[in-house]
């Protein structure tokens, strides 16, 4: 008879209470981890929306900011908002995204639509006509991570100011 099978009264059974208790302890520890994962996800720790997944980077002049989530997930949309403050009005506004940022990201949508898009070796410049004329001067880029890991790059405007943006994407 195999070692693991024992006779209890008149029943041959491979019951192992010591192992069973360890399994129960491990199960309950696992439930705690699962609850922590769900709680962390609700807070935005694994990307998506959540109070811990918000970052605002302000330009040195204070005239514009970039709001983006620092954590994303592969193929899931990551919204990045470039906002110009102080009642800004532009006949032509330009927002530049560096190549290092775009290497790990696809720009799937730009709102409002850019009137012109110029690609160069160091990045892509989006031009917007009459930005802020009838609405707030805000441009939203819908980014889609194409690989997991950290993508770090820069966002800049026509006056040469730049800020650094870093987004970590989970697989």
């Amino acid at each position, binding site marked *: 008879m195999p070692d*693991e099978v024992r006779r209890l009264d008149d029943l041959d*059974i491979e019951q192992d209470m010591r*192992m*069973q208790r360890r*399994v129960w302890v491990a*199960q309950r520890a696992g439930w705690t981890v*699962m609850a922590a994962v769900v709680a962390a996800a609700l807070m935005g720790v694994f990307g998506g929306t959540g109070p811990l997944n918000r970052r605002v980077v302000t330009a040195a002049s204070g005239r514009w900011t970039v709001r983006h989530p620092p954590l994303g997930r592969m193929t899931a949309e990551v919204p990045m908002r470039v906002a110009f403050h102080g009642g800004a009005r532009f006949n032509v506004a330009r927002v530049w995204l560096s190549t290092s940022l775009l290497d790990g990201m696809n720009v799937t949508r730009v709102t409002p639509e850019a009137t012109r898009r110029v690609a160069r070796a160091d990045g892509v410049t989006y031009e917007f006509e009459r930005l802020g004329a009838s609405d707030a001067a805000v441009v939203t880029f819908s980014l889609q991570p194409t690989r997991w890991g950290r993508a770090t790059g820069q966002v800049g405007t026509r006056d040469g100011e730049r800020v650094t943006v870093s987004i970590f994407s989970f697989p």
Partner: protein
Amino acid sequence: MESVLRAALVYFMLLVLFNLAGKRAMSETNTFDFVVLLIISEAVQNALIGEDASFTNTVLVVTTLLGLTIAMSVWKYRSARLEKVLGGGPLILVRHGQLFEDRMRMARVDVPDILMAARNGQGLERLDQIKYAVLEESGSISIIPRQESQA
């Protein structure tokens, strides 16, 4: 390589999570549990295939999953310890009509579950007609009735 790694990661993730759910949770599938299982399969599908819906990728994923299933079954056959770690082994819940309440609580099995198994399997009417009630690794409850002379 990515297809195989993805399939392997999903396999082990499901193995861990379903084992954490416990054997009782997986054996009792009512309509709602069935719907949840369907939803899980849909959620996992995207992780398995990703953007690659080619026939080749499908073959790779299925081969990897079945291969891992076979490997696990061989490993469990050769290692009684692994089988116990993954399933906990069979567990006596009732002996000669007496309940092991602490075990039942930990295994999330209550008296109605045992009575249902007794009625379904053996046509028994009362708890004292049960010689042994064993929670099997599959999550089902086996009932061994008392002999007439012992009841």
